[in-house]
């Protein structure tokens, strides 16, 4: 096989150079990170807010995601209906997403669109309208989105397992919110949430592409400088108490296929164990990398992954996947399995738990550990293959983890050894740290 072995001692002799953007902090507190990448005549602008579903109190779940929707519906300076067209006119791409820690908006377009993108994001930060009729119309859109998700048994199970795994931390509720809260939400609730969290000091603006970085920062200041600083929202104080025993749940509904999920409480991105957990996930289910925006859209290299070999190659599962994502607070390592036709889901449950117990008891082989690290080395290159992806990574890590964390990760991953993985597996895969959920077709 004409593949050289990993470089001795450090398999992450980096094929990927972390970006090194220039930084400017405006007087109102907005941090601007600008980075030149001259590979295409394009610019990507991302505006990040430190608000996600974890920042929602009980009764107001889904507010962050609904606010994201409303922030496409016109501002004092952009009539409703023109928001997306302003970027489409440049052939641009636009989107936004909300998750547990963050809300973000993106435009990628030709470089002549830069000022239009900055204007749009500045408007979005400060001057969205929240027309009462538009809020009401969006209620059914969002409930439709929730119900579309419920059509998928796997998504339904994911929501229930997550809610069971957490007792105290707001990571327990789904980003889209609970149906009752969505019915009760008012226009003023949404506008209040927007005003509390969409302030310059709670945001990071990222500009990457075919631009002069210093000039891009000045262009950002012209658009965002006049926005008042506002008051920083209070941080989330809740912490999840240590889980004291295994948790189980079962959903029985009409369906064609059985699904199984195992969720283990897992370290946040700044935890010293994060890199070892990342390697453990890669060894069990294949390396996804670190880019929430791109890497989860394609299959992971997993043919030699421990759970794939045991369960998919063994004919017990049609598919297995793992999700371990960088998060601000400790979240979950989620293993998802689709039972093969004819495999009782109880049998699949026993098999996956036996595999996890074996890894807990015996750790991983050095070969499995090195393969996982090598896969992660490759993913770090491939997941930064466009200015949109590079900009996402700069903003994501700044928002969720803080300065310097992204650049340090290749080294942290390289430093992981089999003993680290064994220790983390023993701790994190323990029965008392697990929630097991089953979807059983009626």
């Amino acid at each position, binding site marked *: 096989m004409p593949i050289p072995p990993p470089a001795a001692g450090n398999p992450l002799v980096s094929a990927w150079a972390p970006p090194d953007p220039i930084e400017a902090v405006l007087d109102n507190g907005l941090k601007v990170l600008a980075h030149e990448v001259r590979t295409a005549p*394009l610019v990507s602008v991302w505006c990040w807010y430190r608000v996600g579903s974890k920042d929602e109190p009980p009764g107001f779940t889904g507010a962050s995601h609904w606010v994201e929707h409303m922030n496409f519906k016109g501002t004092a300076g952009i009539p409703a209906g023109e928001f997306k067209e302003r970027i489409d006119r440049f052939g641009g791409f636009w989107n936004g997403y909300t998750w547990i820690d963050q809300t973000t908006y993106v435009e990628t377009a030709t470089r002549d669109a830069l000022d239009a993108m900055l204007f749009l994001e500045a408007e979005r930060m400060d001057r969205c309208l929240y027309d009462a009729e538009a809020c009401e119309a969006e209620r059914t859109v969002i409930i439709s989105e929730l119900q579309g998700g419920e059509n998928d048994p796997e998504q339904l199970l994911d929501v229930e397992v997550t809610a069971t795994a957490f007792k105290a931390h707001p990571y327990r509720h789904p980003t889209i919110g609970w149906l009752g809260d969505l019915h009760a939400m008012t226009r003023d609730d949404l506008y209040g949430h927007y005003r509390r969290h969409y302030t310059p000091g709670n945001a990071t603006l990222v500009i990457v592409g075919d631009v002069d970085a210093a000039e891009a920062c000045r262009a950002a200041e012209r658009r965002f400088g006049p926005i008042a600083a506002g008051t920083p929202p209070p941080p989330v104080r809740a912490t999840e108490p240590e889980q004291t025993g295994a948790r189980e749940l079962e959903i029985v509904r009409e369906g064609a296929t059985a699904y199984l999920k195992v969720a283990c409480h897992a370290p946040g991105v700044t935890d010293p164990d994060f890199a070892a957990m990342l390697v453990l996930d890669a060894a069990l289910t294949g390396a996804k990398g670190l880019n929430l925006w791109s890497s989860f859209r394609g299959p992971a290299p*997993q043919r030699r992954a421990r759970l794939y070999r045991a369960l998919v190659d063994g004919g017990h599962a049609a598919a297995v996947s793992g999700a371990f994502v960088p998060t601000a607070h400790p979240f979950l390592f989620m293993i998802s399995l689709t039972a093969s036709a004819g495999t009782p889901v109880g049998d699949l449950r026993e098999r996956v738990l036996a595999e996890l117990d074996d890894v807990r008891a015996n750790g991983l082989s050095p070969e499995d550990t090195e393969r996982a690290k090598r896969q992660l080395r490759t*993913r770090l290159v491939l997941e930064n293959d466009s200015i949109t992806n590079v900009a996402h990574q700069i903003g994501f890590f700044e928002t969720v983890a803080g300065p310097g964390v992204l650049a340090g990760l290749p080294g942290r991953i390289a430093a992981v050894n089999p003993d680290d993985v064994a220790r983390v597996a023993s701790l994190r895969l323990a029965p008392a740290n697990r929630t097991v959920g089953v979807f059983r077709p009626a």
Partner: protein
Amino acid sequence: MTGRGAGPAPVRVEFDNGLTLLVQENRTQPAVSISVAVSAGAAADPPGGEGAAWLLSRLLDRGAGGRSAGEVADLLDLCGVSPAVGVTRHTTTVACDCLAEDVDAVLGLVCDMVRAPACSDGEVRLRRGQLVTRLRQDEDRPATRAVEAAMALLYGDAHPYGRRPRGSVDTVAAIDAGRLRDFHAAHFAPARTTVVLVGAIAAPAAEAAVARATDEWRGGGRAAEPRPAPPPPAARRRRMIPMPAKAQVDIAYGFTAVPRSDPAFHACRIMNLVLGEYGIGGRLGRSIRERQGMAYYAGSAFEASPIAGPLLVRAGVAAGNVDRAIASIDHEVDRFARDGVTAGELADAKRYLVGSLPRSLETNAGIARFLQNCEQFDLGLDYDRRVPELVRSVTAGQVAEAARRTLASDRAAIAVAGPCEAE
């Protein structure tokens, strides 16, 4: 390609065995995108053997070119590579990205996967079981059920476009290793294969590597001409698929449009963009989602195809809104056929299509997809330079004519799946 700042223009090589290679050197990353496409897809499934192309695609990386399934897995996982194997009605494509340092090994393996998959009895049994699970999942998804039913209404159950692309549990159960090997021998040939390499690799090195990997591959001819689409139906048809346990209804509402080679193709693209894509779902999205708040998604898609491909409107709505949503689609479809496109919509659509070209050519994988598309539809290697003018030259009259030819609510094929009543 003109969309990139770096690298020379693509190089096209045709080998003695008929295989085509396209190379675009681009050294912005230490990586290479590999795409190998064979003109053999679900349309080639034999009657009664529906699902053969799809099942074969699941077998390509399960042993190939004398390597066992385990050896293939070892190589792929060591390189951190996960090939995406896609099957359309006319093409099977294996695509992956790898580090430049691994390109020789990965390219050789991907070519072996296409040229000489093992299709061992044991692997066929395993992957057939996974496909059966996938088919059962499809049967449980309202969106999939609605789209498949709409395609059957448009093209007829016996036409390759009207059949389920992954077959059924019954047809897949009857496909064994022998039938898969026969299917491969009949449809996978070098003259039907295009290899595209984009990234940190020079054309001479790419040519030498592909020659090493495929030199011994011989036999087969070009793919047969596809079966034409049936004439557009004379009447509206509607099929309801009750799935009472589901939370939401999916609607698929469609027409047949034009082949990729039709002079009206770009007018149809603009028509579809205005109807159901621009902004957040074009006119349909503005009506159904933005103004009426009925759906999380509402829009349309137009598929480039060697025959008259489908233009499908899709929406997900609450059960109580089905009739209102379909009435809204009827209204927008008929309005478009009657009034055509406004000058502002036409200008916006053209700016979007021209302006989005650099974005589609931003990554190695994007360039590889673009080049495969150029080869499949014989568009030429200068297509990226020609397409802006092709788009800009479309007139409002041509879009209106495309709409009159394509859109008519009284000829629509409509499928509804979810918590709805049977017809």
